[in-house]
């Protein structure tokens, strides 16, 4: 255990995480709205996760911040909490999540496309509204997405036994000429980022218990962003989806990236499309107050999906990350003359100095090989490359 981890009880560490989560929604305690937490001495493990009972205090009037914070907590995956608003005790016991097996870890759902635009050369960004996934998704997980639209499925059902087949009308076009007569298999796409609605819910007028419940029906985490690399028919077809169209989604699936409780520093190395899952990871690490260095590599500036250009949500992604305390280093072979793995090697001593550190990497195999060549005990792409 590192000195800091040893000093801090687990609950306090998680409270720091919660505070970070609150800040990520733009919550700062205001004068007069005495916002605070108190963790009760009830910490227990459930399904490998710490669960604890804590209380939230707000001032005499429930402020927007307090209400939003409640929602943030609702998305924070700890099943048991109390809210104390002024003198009114609003107790929310999510007993199902604490005592039982919890809600299904995945669902088959329809998600509305809320954003669809090229992210950079050869990449496309899709944002869908999908609260059931957004609430529970963890870094490293993915969605299984149908590339076939409902209209195509209907056409298929109507004409499947006719000799021409359902895609006959498309035969003239170049790429679809080879399209199978069958709906394409689902495509696995990494969860790139999780976001809240741009418009926050209205402030709660009074501290009545039911108010929280109503607001909790609109939790903050509702949107899932995907970064598609346009190779192959499936991704191309997904990139054609327009705003207000629907995606058929199965997820979240896959094993989340394990983040050690006592981790102090993290180095996240993404090559090319490897940024797709690692952006989410970097944000989660920053939320947990883990010092995060994000190295992003691409062949050239045009192919850098997280650039200094405004991103899908009209915000410069790299600077947004920096604002959250993530040290971002963008590396392109064409302009900088080094690959991201070489940059890591250049900065290795500095990056690995001090504290308990883990390396998370995702990218092309040569990059992974180079990143881990200084360590023999490389396990798999997803496994932490090692602890120092």
């Amino acid at each position: 255990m590192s000195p800091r981890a040893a000093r801090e009880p687990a609950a306090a560490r998680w409270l720091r995480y919660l505070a970070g989560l609150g800040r990520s929604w733009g919550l700062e305690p205001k004068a007069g709205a005495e916002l605070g937490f108190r963790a009760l001495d009830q910490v227990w493990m459930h399904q490998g996760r710490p669960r604890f009972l804590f209380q939230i205090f707000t001032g005499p009037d429930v402020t927007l911040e307090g209400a939003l914070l409640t929602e943030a907590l609702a998305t924070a995956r700890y099943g048991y909490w109390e809210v104390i608003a002024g003198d009114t005790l609003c107790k929310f016991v999510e007993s199902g999540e604490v005592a039982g097996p919890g809600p299904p870890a995945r669902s088959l759902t329809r998600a509305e496309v809320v954003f669809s635009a090229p992210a950079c050369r050869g990449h496309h960004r899709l944002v869908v509204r999908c609260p059931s996934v957004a609430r529970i998704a963890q870094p490293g997980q993915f969605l299984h997405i149908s590339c076939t639209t409902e209209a195509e499925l209907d056409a298929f059902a109507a004409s499947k036994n006719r000799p021409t087949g359902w895609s006959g009308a498309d035969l003239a076009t170049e790429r679809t000429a080879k399209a199978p007569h069958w709906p394409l298999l689902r495509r696995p796409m990494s969860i790139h980022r999780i976001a809240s609605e741009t418009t926050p819910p209205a402030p709660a007028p009074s501290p009545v218990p039911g108010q929280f419940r109503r607001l909790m029906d609109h939790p903050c985490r509702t949107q899932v962003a995907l970064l598609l690399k346009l190779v192959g028919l499936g991704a191309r077809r997904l990139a054609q989806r327009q705003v207000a169209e629907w995606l058929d989604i199965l997820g979240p699936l896959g094993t989340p990236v394990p983040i050690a409780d006592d981790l102090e520093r993290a180095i996240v190395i993404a090559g090319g499309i490897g940024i797709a899952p690692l952006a989410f990871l970097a944000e989660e690490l920053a939320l947990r107050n883990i010092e995060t260095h994000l190295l992003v590599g691409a062949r050239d500036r045009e192919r850098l999906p997280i650039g200094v250009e405004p991103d899908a949500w009209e915000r410069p992604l790299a600077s947004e990350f920096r604002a959250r305390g993530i040290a971002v280093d963008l590396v392109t072979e064409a302009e900088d003359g080094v690959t991201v793995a070489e940059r890591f090697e250049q900065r290795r001593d500095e990056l690995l100095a001090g504290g308990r550190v883990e390396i998370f990497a995702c990218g092309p195999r040569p990059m992974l090989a180079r990143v881990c060549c200084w360590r023999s005990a490389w396990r798999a792409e997803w496994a932490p490359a090692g602890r120092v």
Partner: protein
Amino acid sequence: MNLSVSLAGLQLATPIMIASGIWGYGDEYTGLGTLEGVGAVVLKTITLDPCVGNEPACRTVETPSGMLNSIGLENIGAEAFLADKLPHLRDLPERRTATPLRIIVSIAGDTVDEFARLAARLEGEAGIDALEVNISCPNVERGGALFGCDANAAAEVTRAVRSACSLPVIPKLTPNVTDIAAIARACAEAGADALSLINTISGMAIDVRTQRPRLGGDFGGLSGPAIRPAAVLRVYQVAQAVSLPIIGMGGVWDAEDVLEFVEAGATAVGVGTALFFDPQRPRKIVQGLEALLREMGAEDIRPLIGAVRLNRGQQID
């Protein structure tokens, strides 16, 4: 409307089955409503000892109207299956109905003796209704399809499993043979209670730019609608050769596909690749099947088993 059928002494609520390897041991499909409308599930093939399978990078490739897979019988082994998976499976709520969901365990081995030992180990375990004997996996070098490609070897494995346990024995046949009817006859004479067909058709896809096979394991098994006509013919040929009930499968998507297999001679029909696309296919198929039978004026699916009449030799009026 009766969709219930009887297969190797087991009553199935519907003729819809989930083919081996799709549903795993059920964990991955929890909460998705996949079992609705399903009469029986065939679990992912198990072997005596755990097996890591083939090269993990790229085990599936989409192909026109289908997919290639090369998993290589990755599984957790018999002991872990019995300890960790079976208790959960036997307690499924679908098992507590009047006609419970049937659980069929698929088994494989490198030698005849391994098949027999595995069957003996599973004998008497509550929650197992039948054994599917996988003598047709195209993705392992030893064992696997070698048994399914030779009538004597297929019969030998069937006989060994038959005498090692009292469960219904259902060999699964490969289409990658010259005469599938001969293999079917050999299995029937060796004591099989039903037959399951077809396993995947062996195939290969090449990335022409790198001159490398697209599958990590180089070769694989083709499934999906691409193989359905081939599967329907094999079911017909086997139905003509033996009197055993048949589980037909290969590229089933909807109710019409199911009825195609049934009329070719299948008593039950497996759904496989389609579940990867839509985990709720079985429910939709059953709804479609009821509508289709109603449209055809049929009250019961059983009279339609093997009802196909060939055009050949028919008088033209």
